[in-house]
């Protein structure tokens, strides 16, 4: 039995399962919710299968169509892919269950097929080993994300979604132009083959610029973050959670993979330093803007802008800091995904409860929604980077690298960002305890919506306790160990 199970192509199932469920949900709109929930649980189970397979047999790869690269397309799963697939599965299941309380039955046929296609795009993206295939997954991902962002149908959300669409398309086109140049020069779109051929040439630099700029736009790195706060804040709460936790991480995942696989020809650190400076600015700007917001969802969205900044701080550090920095980034991607999804679910609960999300009028919500407020507090601990959370482990490793290398500026920015994060988290918590001058009609919030938020927040904290085994899982395939060390 075990011998057969180890042979199963879990990774391929991860792509086909959400795709099939999306088709079924589209065909049978009345059953879309049940089909989707079943698919969500099966995806979680399949990720566990893939994880077990990777620990037993190491890196997995699949030759789609039976044609080896460069002619065909290969799929590839290593520890980093597994981390992202598992993050998507955990957040995906929690958000799926949450959404059954949030959306009315009439909205199921608008939400479920699109969300399942988005999930398929994420899984396919994390398994891709081919730059053109990555482009196709980005297209599926971007369009489904924009559609979900527009689901409320309000004027704000439609215009924010339109802006999001134009930004994400521009990012895709820049990415496509970059891979077009690479293909013409080096004759392949397979990452492994390209990594052997790409050298220090004009074309490589142009591709580096186009791909990095396109993906930075999609990841909402400062100053390309302009589309994110309105789009994430005006989407329905479960969608905001998916967008902030998973979708922006997906383009960062590609950037990191290509940076390590293709763009290691550049020894000069100008680009890395530039990304670091933009990241540092994002940390400060995002945090200050978050502090200034009067609406909870806008605050959480700007907090995403700031936390994305931390991911980019790693680029200058990795020049000399070796693999620990990239492990820290992977850890930050996981813990931010869990914590930020929890925060947006909390915001959805408060909005449902009070009919608004103005922070000053939260009106003793702590007494009436204790589970929800507890979720916000726990998620906040991870966002601030306090022990013993997952966010703490990630930021501690980054800070350690910054101090060891004498990057005092980066270390200072990280600490300042932490203090600002504490300020905006406590601002919300403070108003949750005091009565508001304008009382509001309270609507009851289904228990599953509260517990899903708490579950994700608790997992964000728990991620801090399992650092050792998690790092071992991430290390399967040694993506981070072979590169980024001293040249």
């Amino acid at each position: 039995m075990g011998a057969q199970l180890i042979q199963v192509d879990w990774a391929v199932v991860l792509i086909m399962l959400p795709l099939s469920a999306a088709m079924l949900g589209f065909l049978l709109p009345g059953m879309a919710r049940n089909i989707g929930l079943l698919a969500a649980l099966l995806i979680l189970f399949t990720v566990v299968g893939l994880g077990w397979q990777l620990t037993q047999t190491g890196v997995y790869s699949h030759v789609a169509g039976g044609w080896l690269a460069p002619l065909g397309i290969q799929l590839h799963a290593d520890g980093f892919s597994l981390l992202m697939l598992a993050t998507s599965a955990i957040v995906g299941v929690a958000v799926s269950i949450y959404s059954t309380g949030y959306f009315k039955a009439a909205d199921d046929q608008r939400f479920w097929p699109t969300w399942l296609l988005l999930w398929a795009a994420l899984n396919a993206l994390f398994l891709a080993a081919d730059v053109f295939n990555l482009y196709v997954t980005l297209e599926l991902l971007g369009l489904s994300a924009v559609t979900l962002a527009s689901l409320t149908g309000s004027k704000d959300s439609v215009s924010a979604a339109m802006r999001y669409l134009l930004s994400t398309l521009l990012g895709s086109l820049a990415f496509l132009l970059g891979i077009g140049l690479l293909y013409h020069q080096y004759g392949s779109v397979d990452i492994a083959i390209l990594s052997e051929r790409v050298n220090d040439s004009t074309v490589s630099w142009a591709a580096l610029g186009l791909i990095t700029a396109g993906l930075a736009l999609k990841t909402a790195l400062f100053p390309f973050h302009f589309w994110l706060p309105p789009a994430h804040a005006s989407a329905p709460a479960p969608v905001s959670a998916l967008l902030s936790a998973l979708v922006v991480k997906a383009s960062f995942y590609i950037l990191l993979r290509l940076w390590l696989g293709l763009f290691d020809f550049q020894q000069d650190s100008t680009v890395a330093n530039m990304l670091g400076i933009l990241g540092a600015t994002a940390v400060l700007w995002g945090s200050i803007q978050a502090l200034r917001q009067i609406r909870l969802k806008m605050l959480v969205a700007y907090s995403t802008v700031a936390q994305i900044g931390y991911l980019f701080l790693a680029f200058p550090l990795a020049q000399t800091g070796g693999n620990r920095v990239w492990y820290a980034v992977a850890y930050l991607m996981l813990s931010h995904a869990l914590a930020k999804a929890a925060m947006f679910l909390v915001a959805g609960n408060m909005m449902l409860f009070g009919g608004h999300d103005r922070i000053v009028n939260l009106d003793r919500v702590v007494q009436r929604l204790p589970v929800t407020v507890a979720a916000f507090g726990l998620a906040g601990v991870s966002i601030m980077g306090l022990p013993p959370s997952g966010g703490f482990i990630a930021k501690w490793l980054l800070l350690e690298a910054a101090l060891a290398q004498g990057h005092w500026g980066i270390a200072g920015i990280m600490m300042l960002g932490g203090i600002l994060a504490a300020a905006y988290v406590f601002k919300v918590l403070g108003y949750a305890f005091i009565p508001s001058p304008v009382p509001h009609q309270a609507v009851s919030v289904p228990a599953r919506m509260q517990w899903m938020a708490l579950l994700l927040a608790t997992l964000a904290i728990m991620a801090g306790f399992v650092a050792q085994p998690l790092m071992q899982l991430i290390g399967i395939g040694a993506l981070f160990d072979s590169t980024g060390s001293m040249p």
Partner: protein
Amino acid sequence: MEAVGLWQSAFDLMLGFSLFGLAWRMLFCADLFKSIVLFITFGLLMAIAWVRLEAPDVALAEATIGAGLTGALLMSAFAKLRTLDNSLKSGQPLLPRPRLHVINFWIALLFTVLLTGGLAYAVLSLPSHSPGLSDAVMSQLDSSGVTHPVTAVLLNFRGYDTLLEMAVLLLSIQSVWSMAGMSDAGEVHTSPVLNVLIQLLSPVLILVSAYLLWVGAHAPGGAFQAGSILGAAGVLLVLSGRPLFNLKKSWLIRLMLVAGPAAFIALATLTLINEGQLLKYPVANAANYILLLETLATVSIGTTLLALFVGSQTEAVQQDQSHQ
């Protein structure tokens, strides 16, 4: 020989400048209707440019989808906008043209010039001739089941990409329906001339579509081109007031939309189980599998494009459930 080359260069030069000129006029034209017409013209000239670049497959797709159906979608969006905003009728711009501050203008110009210059430099430094993977494609063509290299790449060598592209197609109609709701075609203008024209054209279009589908196995053509012609036939029929099916309730139309992507997924699953790799066709059956996939994909592509056209004609159903 020399003279032919000169004429060709002159033609290419003219084509290039016309494309640039059309694009410029299209972007800076105050009248939205005129812009759309220019866009369609641009698509047709672009198709000719693809022919000159010896990419007939892309040329066909550009003419049918880029110029034809996108043009129809833009026109129907324009008609919708006109009912919302009367000023459009008199050729007024929909929105006042944004005025850039003079400093912003110069910054934007500088940035654009630098970007264009950098890209031009990179493109010029590319090798003038790059075989890419065409040798690899040609050497495996015999075992692909078809003799046209483009079809072999799309349906066999990189069939997995096409599977995901079919999912994008389904997503497009799911998006339009989830934003605008689903309903039947809007207002209809019939005229005797249009009716006769459509009676003559529809069978021809369906035949052309079938031909393009069939010929794709050994010459330029295939599911995307065939599907867009089929979609165009549907658009004509809808325009003349023939309700093809009741889009709102029809289970059949959902099945037609899903057929293409579902066939890909079913075959991927089947080959994964039987051959151990997704979309790995046994050489003996490759031709049949590809024909089956392309036929169902044609149906789905045609239906999707038609449904996009019909969907864009309907009034938006706004449901505010944001709990604000």
